[in-house]
């Protein structure tokens, strides 16, 4: 479904990604783990076209997307929940969700998805008229995921959804991610620092170090891998 082919991405003169290649098949949950500054967020931003790769190509369902604008990439069915959630603070919860469906025209289906999201996270229904900036961290993460779901993506990119959340909320968020994958048939590309949780739900995983992919295997195998255990699982 998604094929990242040998990309190199730069911030000015600083090279953040070196010859990165990653493939994602339809229906999978794949995870990308790595230390701070490894280049995980940059990988997602290159896919979304915010920080385009300088060399190399990215394909989505056979079509090259590495030269497209971000809004065109969203239009093809790739949504991202970026690091830090990036809720619009001065827009209401409902307006944030409406913007998630910005490119859609199927009004009836949008309404159904809104109901689904409110069922998934009842707290958002209660807070729908409240400004996004007034939500708690956990609620903002729920809103960020819901906003992305409102776009009905076929590939959902998630950047550290567990960051700064209490264990119970993290648990809930990960359950929902699995649910979205199984019920909505949405392919998931999950970036996480919490390697244990990520590898547990992922079919396959990639390990990234200073801009390069150093290891890839199934989630289960990576969890048994000595290097991964030492570096990321803290055992």
């Amino acid at each position, binding site marked *: 479904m998604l094929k990242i082919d040998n990309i190199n991405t730069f911030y000015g003169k600083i090279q953040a990604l070196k010859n990165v290649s990653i493939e994602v098949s339809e229906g999978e949950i794949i995870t990308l783990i790595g230390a701070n500054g490894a280049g995980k967020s940059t990988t997602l931003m290159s896919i979304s076209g915010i920080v385009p790769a300088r060399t190399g190509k990215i394909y989505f369902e056979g079509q090259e997307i590495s030269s497209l604008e*971000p809004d065109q990439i969203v239009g093809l069915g790739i949504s991202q929940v970026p690091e830090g959630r990036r809720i*619009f603070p001065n827009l209401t919860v409902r307006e944030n969700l409406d913007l998630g469906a910005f490119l859609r025209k199927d009004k009836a289906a949008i309404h159904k998805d809104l109901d689904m999201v409110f069922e998934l996270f009842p707290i958002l229904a209660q807070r729908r008229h409240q400004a996004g900036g007034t939500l708690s961290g956990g609620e903002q993460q729920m809103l960020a995921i819901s906003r992305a779901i409102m776009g009905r993506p076929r590939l959902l990119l998630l950047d550290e959804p567990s960051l700064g959340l209490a264990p119970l909320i993290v648990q809930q968020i990960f359950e929902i991610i699995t649910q979205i994958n199984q019920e909505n048939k949405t392919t998931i590309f999950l970036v996480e620092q919490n390697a244990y949780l990520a590898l547990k739900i992922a079919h396959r995983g990639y390990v990234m170090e200073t801009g390069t992919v150093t290891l890839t295997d199934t989630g289960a195998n990576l969890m048994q891998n000595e290097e991964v255990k030492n570096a990321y699982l803290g055992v």
Partner: protein
Amino acid sequence: MNYFTEVVLSGLTRGSIYALIALGYTMVYGIIELINFAHGEIYMIGAFTALILASVLTIFGFNTIAILFLASIIAIVYSAMYGYTMEKVAYKPIRNSQRLSALISAIGMSMFLQNYVRIAQTSDFLPFPRIIPRFPWLSALPISMSSAQFMIFASTAVVMVLLTFLIKFTKIGKSMRAASQDKVMAKLLGVNVNKVISVTFIIGSATAALGGILISSYTGQINFYIGFLAGIKAFVAAVLGGIGSIPGAVLGSFVLGLTESLGAGYISSDYEDVFAFIILAVILIVKPAGILGKGQIEKV
């Protein structure tokens, strides 16, 4: 009618015009944090275009109402295209450069447009036709208001209502608010931010042109330089209200308009133009973010 009412009415007239111009300043700043110093020239170009159109339409024998509407609408559309093109030519290519580059480009654009009109037209004041017809029923009002003043108030009110509706409830309005809060996130949701910026310039230019046409038919004369002072004052009004805030721009415009008229009416009309700058100096010292502004603003 007593002197005070007259002075207040004239202050509200000025305030309305400043508001129509300040909207463009504040909306553009809200989205790309640029002070578009060439914005006043769009106001001037709107007035000149309407003047030319009105003259041509008069030759062809159109009646007053037809001239008013045709000249205004075509001039507004034409000026909006100017604003759109200005952004594409002078600002978009340097959007990722330092802030100073955009500022210099804006000042350059302003000088270019002023001199272009000066050479293409004239540097003298030209009489502006009275395109606003007399409304006889206005004399029934307890306060005496000219038909031009009435048109200025009515148009400003309509523009404010339409704009509020647009920004609050429409899709483009929501994408404008989203882009002004977080451009990257707006892009990640499929918003074409370039388009949002273009629409912002188009709306701001259209309201400025409307202001230019209205004020010229009120004062009855124009030249290539009218956009400069009006632009600076509307900028002061936008800063006064809190740059980036639309209600702030409107509030700041009326505060400025009333201060100027009251100052000119009760202190001395020689210092009419000085009040704007006194207000600017005071607000920058007392509350740099403006009356309705939030947080710090960067000095430009």
